[in-house]
């Protein structure tokens, strides 16, 4: 997983609430067996018309937002399915950070597993950032994860909250399976205790 430390990049405004995972990546593109390559289908129905031509008014089809690495949206971003194809598609397009008033739980989790930083900011601040980045080529924001701030084009810093453990994993690009493997002894002991306390439980599985 790629580390996330600092990012200065174009931010695209997407002032929509309830952007669901079917909007981010429609189900018909889930037939892949690999993680990469989904970026071309990101926001497919919003980005392309029924003949596959770009919809010129959609933000990611306009300059400079075609090169956006940050997305700013409204409430409940990523609601719907648990499909990790949603963060994969965002990442494959180049998005490394999504800012919104709040996120659906599973999507929020999935972001961290893929090196994407989801930032929760109050709606008024999201709208202020959307106003900032609507100014074409000045549409750049800076994110500093170490210091937990979003820097506006005018230099003002907006602090954000993030779970320390998740921050640590992102900053170091750590895979959490490796972290958990360090607890293998505790998992073994847990399994044995559980089987002893509820002897019927192990009999409910078949190899």
């Amino acid at each position, binding site marked *: 997983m790629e580390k996330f430390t600092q990012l200065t990049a174009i931010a695209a405004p997407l002032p929509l609430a309830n952007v669901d995972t079917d909007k981010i990546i429609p189900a018909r593109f889930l037939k892949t067996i690999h993680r990469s390559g989904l970026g071309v289908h990101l926001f497919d129905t919003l980005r392309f018309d029924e003949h596959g031509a770009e919809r010129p008014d959609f933000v990611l089809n306009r300059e400079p937002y075609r090169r956006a690495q940050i997305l700013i949206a409204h409430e*409940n971003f990523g609601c719907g399915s648990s499909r990790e194809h949603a963060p994969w598609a965002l990442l494959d397009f180049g998005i490394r950070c999504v800012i919104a008033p709040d996120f659906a739980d599973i999507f929020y989790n999935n972001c961290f597993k893929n090196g994407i930083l989801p930032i929760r900011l109050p709606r008024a601040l999201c709208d202020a950032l959307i106003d900032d980045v609507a100014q074409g080529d000045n549409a750049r924001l800076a994110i500093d994860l170490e210091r937990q701030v979003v820097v506006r084009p005018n230099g003002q810093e907006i602090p954000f909250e993030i779970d320390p453990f998740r921050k640590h994993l992102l900053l170091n690009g750590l895979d959490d399976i490796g972290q958990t493997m360090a607890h293998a002894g505790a998992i073994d002991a847990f399994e044995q205790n559980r089987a002893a306390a509820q002897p019927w439980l192990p009999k409910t599985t078949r190899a």
Partner: protein
Amino acid sequence: MSGPRTLFDKIWDDHVVERLPDGTCLLYIDRHLVHEVTSPQAFEGLRAAGRPVRRPEATIAVADHNVPTSDRRHGIAEPESRLQVETLERNVADFGVPYFPVLDERQGIVHIIGPEQGISLPGMTIVCGDSHTSTHGALGALAFGIGTSEVEHVLATQTLLQKRAKNMRIEVAGQTPAGSSAKDIILAIIGAIGTAGGTGHVIEFTGDAIRALDMAGRMTVCNMAIEAGARAGLVAPDETTFDWIKGRPYAPQGADFEAAVRYWRGLASDPGAVYDKVVRIEAATIAPMVTWGTSPECVAPITGAVPDPAAEPDPTKRAEITRMLTYMGLQPGQKLAEIPVDVVFIGSCTNGRIEDIRAAAAIARGRRVARGVRALVVPGSGLVKKQAEAEGLDRILLEAGFEWREPGCSMCLGMNEDKLTPGQRAASTSNRNFEGRQGPGGRTHLVSPAMAAAAAIAGRLADAREFL
């Protein structure tokens, strides 16, 4: 934790392997259900790291999302779907994971077959790379959807790193009126609290109306807890639960079953347990419901009308409603019961159980699907299909002009060939009415199985109570 605890607290506490300094818990996972869409990249990751599956026997795999629902003895024609199913078959063989093959009668939608086989049991932690894992919460299990990275994490370690969710209780008090079903209860709840109403919470459904539901109904309710934004849904296990589990293939048998029931009885929330959020809904107010927009919270009784965006004071919401009505091809003020439908879909993990098919057949009996309407019935599993055929429900439905198909997710998400075409309008017993969910440009109205059957007969959205 001391003091009175909720059902969720008890299951959670029972599964904490370790608590990390920041409060994140390493949570033990009892059952892991795997399907073909969200697992290939997880197995790919294990292979790359040279890691085995820690407990293959606690894992069960099935292909459901993009299997064809027509005759499939000759395999899967669509190359990408075939590749996903073949990849799953290779992965389960390589890693020794139990698997129900496509032609096995136990094959079906992952959330139907887990409970059906007794693989999902009360008090367990159950995960699957699929948000509707919340379905299994109907048994009194903590069941939730995870992403593919977490699928890989569970395969490798049988645990997950999790933050404890908050407790929410939704009490559905009193008695649901005749003609209203479990689907109407959950749609009414989502209408009341919104699609973010349960975010960060595990919802425990309580109250007489929930107690009165059979297991199928409880599964319908918990299935859509995710549509209310919740991490999971739960119903405390009771006699209805134990009777239903008894004798299922993977369930404990004989003295083991008795021992298990003793443990399960202790899971119910303690009197005085504290919830972070409490909502109460009067069951008597719940009529047969139908959605009119592209979010499950956009719902109204079938006797109602399409809302008028002009009446919405918040400009953002007003714009959203307008956008939805354009997509849905609806007029403000239009009567819901006058909206014509092109397609009816009865199935999915929300409403693909035998009880759902019985409810549809009861309406279809002796009637005809309206001209020009395509009506599909897709059983949730091979065993549901077999049971329905033993009861003659397939004959009733076929004679009425419904299609009777092979089990799978089908038109719930349009990954196989069962799709809406642009502009087509469906009454669907599934769980999501998002834009394009059932096919690009397709328009979805979520309803109960009885309401879907009534729509098929009437050729428009219709009040099932008029057909009883």
